[in-house]
């Protein structure tokens, strides 16, 4: 177990920077991915976004890290269609085999799902996202920060344990956590006795979003218990400076979301 974990830490890997496909307006993502494909060495961090997935899928080789479930989209769809219609549309989009598999796996959870028990709903949402993401073979799937941070706020070990426990179901894809509260997550993982092989968190030269402090977050990277994947926002002009900072603090894998200037 130790050797597996060691290999997943920040040590012994080369530094790579991919593209975080976030914030780009609909209809512009395909062009963005095409433009940045070489610069990002085909490495992308995405939500379950049909446009981005289709654009990545059109390329021969890509490495995809995904953020699941796309909470904002579910909330938006729920507002758009209502919970019942959204559920029906989702189910209709599945193949017969997947529908049977899903039904067989969650038949006993129907009551809990209808009552919106998040521990029962989460695996279904993750799987629905995965069914769309699997076209691009994600190598890592991070639990959306809204879910992770909600669990942190409420000291909800069960929700995080439930997500990390899904690793058996996605053996070819590593499950990690995304957070905007990195040091608190580390504390809680220790307290809850849970292991996440990788964590996706904001790292920024100005310290923005590095909670509870820049120093503490940098300290975690120096003595890594797991792989810390960084994401950062930068204009094209600032990108190189941010990349240099991430490299300096010992980050091995980072994603930059390019912001229009």
């Amino acid at each position, binding site marked *: 177990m130790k050797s597996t974990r060691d290999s997943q830490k920040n040590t012994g890997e080369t530094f790579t920077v991919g593209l975080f496909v976030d914030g780009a307006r609909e209809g512009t993502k395909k062009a963005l991915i095409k433009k940045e494909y070489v610069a990002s060495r085909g490495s992308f961090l995405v939500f379950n976004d049909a446009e981005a997935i289709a654009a990545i899928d059109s390329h021969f080789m890509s490495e995809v890290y995904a953020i699941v479930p796309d909470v904002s989209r579910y909330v938006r769809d729920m507002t758009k269609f209502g919970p019942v219609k959204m559920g029906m549309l989702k189910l209709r989009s599945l193949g017969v085999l997947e529908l049977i598999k899903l039904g067989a796996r969650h038949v006993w959870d129907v009551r809990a799902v209808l009552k919106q028990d998040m521990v029962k709903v989460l695996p279904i949402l993750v799987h629905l996202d995965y069914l769309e993401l699997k076209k691009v073979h994600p190598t890592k799937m991070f639990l959306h920060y809204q879910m992770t941070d*909600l669990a942190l*706020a409420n000291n909800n070990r069960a929700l995080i344990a439930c997500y990390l426990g899904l690793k058996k179901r996605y053996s070819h894809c590593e499950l990690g956590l995304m957070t905007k509260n990195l040091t608190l997550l580390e504390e809680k993982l220790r307290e809850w006795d849970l292991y996440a092989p990788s964590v996706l968190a904001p790292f920024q030269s100005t310290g923005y979003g590095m909670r509870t402090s820049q120093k503490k977050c940098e300290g975690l990277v120096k003595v890594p218990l797991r792989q810390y994947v960084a994401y950062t926002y930068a204009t094209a002009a600032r990108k190189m400076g941010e990349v240099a900072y991430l490299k300096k603090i010992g980050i091995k894998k980072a994603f930059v979301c390019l912001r229009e200037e």
Partner: protein
Amino acid sequence: MATLSIQKSNTSKPSIHVLITGANGFIGQALVLELLQDARFSIRAMVRQNKSKKGNVSGLNVSYVIGDVTDLSSCIAATKGVDVVYHLAAKTSEKPSETAASYAINVGGTKNIISACLVNKVKHLVVVSSQSTKRARRGAYGETKRLADLEVEGIPAAKGLKYTIVKPTLVYGPGSKGLFSNVLKLVEKLPIIPIVGSGNYKMQPVHVDDVVVALRSIALNSATYGKTYDLAGGTRLTFNSLISTIQRVLGTSKKVVHVPYRLVYSGIKGMSLVTSKIPVTTDNLLGLMQETSISLTSAQEDFGFTSRSFFDGMTQSVWGRRDSSKIQVGIIGLGKMGLLHASLVNHMDSTQLCGVFDVNTKVRSQIRSLHIHAPFYSNLALFLDEVKPDAVIISIPPAFTLPTIREVVKRGIPFLVEKPLADSLEHASEIVALASEKKLIAAVGFMQGYTSRVGLVVRLLEKGVLGTVESFEGTAYVTQVLSRKKGWRYDKKTAGGGCVSLHGTHLLYLMYRLFGLPAKVGSTLEFPYSEVEDKAAISCSYKNGVKGKLRVSWSEKGFSKLTIGLTVIGKNGSMRVEDDQVIVDLKTGSGGYSAGRTVICREEFESCEFELGGDGYYQEDVAFVNAVRAKGGDLVTLQDGFNVQKLLDAVYKSHALKKEVKV
């Protein structure tokens, strides 16, 4: 079983050495914890067989004695050097085959303890008996406890051993032990709750903490020597009321069904032949059905006994103790925003989530799965009266804000209300008047007001970096409504408005914060999909000549999340305020900014300690709670909320009148 082994020594130097039999039982565990808080006591706990039987008392600063009350030699060994013995060990099994064991433990065990106390010259024996000894019809437990009491009462005064007997009613409290936890489990799990007989028989359950406080006060208290005391809770209620109170605390509203007593009694008797693991025994049943006369006068006089109300005790048992050092915050409305605030309150060190309210009882299981543990209410008055929050956060549709705030203000509770303040200017005005009359701390949830980004922009404008401001243009866009929609958000009566009321108010607040109220407002609204506006074009003019244009839409394609932007144009250049950056273009350098373009990214703004739901929410809740504690602070006030409501009202009026209106 004659062996005695003390496995952990107490290193302190206390003056009263006590032995507790049955220390791993429901009352025993609570008693150990209570006595541990008092440095006068050195505790020895008598447990049977092995470490695994220690229950929650394991690992505490307690000496453990392995022994059995049916074995005299182990009792003698355990009472050596002891001043006070708390005798709690008892057998409650229902199996007929174990009646003999009940006699051996409850009667024989008590005899052994008395003998051991006499041998070791123990000063005081405190026996926990039961109200069931006073009943006409007694089961094995009641009868054996009665016989045990007789043994205690028969201790000759000349022998020097003083005794006190306490007879608690039904004891309840936190944890998974005892009859009460079984009743709770049944109420939680069963779809329908069975009630034996009419349910009109009365009872007075007592919280375990009140019992153990009494037991601590009794030790070596000469006023209690040779006496028997009743211990009961602060509320006498019928079984029907008891179940309804439990349901209220758990937040359930299940149906109850009355089952004939004979049927239940026979059923339990039958089950007891097969298994000992039955949630309710016939002794429990006999106890429930036969009321006893209870007098607390002597307990109150001799050792100042007090007990909490059943509701308070139940709330504490299920949801944990209220921490008086923390601000108790209640949440009204458990939609997306309510859940966010509840989670933030849960996270903050200075607050405790004391209760939640929503008319929709279906959200109860959702909030539980999110670990938002607090009493759930669907009746607002009951919520405010029973939970008594120090402050509330209100996140409900605007149409219900005024009646809700009336109830909150009536009780003098500080509040934070999500924006917009109300569904109409008239209602907003009433809210402001209500709160100011009572001089309450009150705030409106324009979270932008707490972000450092807005603070920065205000500072730049105050410094006059742009020179004289001439005009501004703002947008608030999101892709949300592209077809006809149902729900309260799209109902004019409930929501008070559409995209301007829901999203545009952020922009209106920003404009108000930066420039104050305009003199006139004009607007054109579009309704392609909803009864409420889907798109709006707003124009504003100020007395000083500043002109502004705003566009708001929730039907704009390409905006997966709400995107707000505001461009301010001055004589010396312009400033573009976005969610994640501020872009300053200056003709000549000013206020520390050089001529040309300066992009101040979000990353350069200070960061908050915790983030959930986006920038501003955590800071907003922290500011509100600090203001409640300090009885004042820098908040987005109701007056600010009212002024934004004035703008909102002017927008709708202008559209209706098809001309500019005065604000």
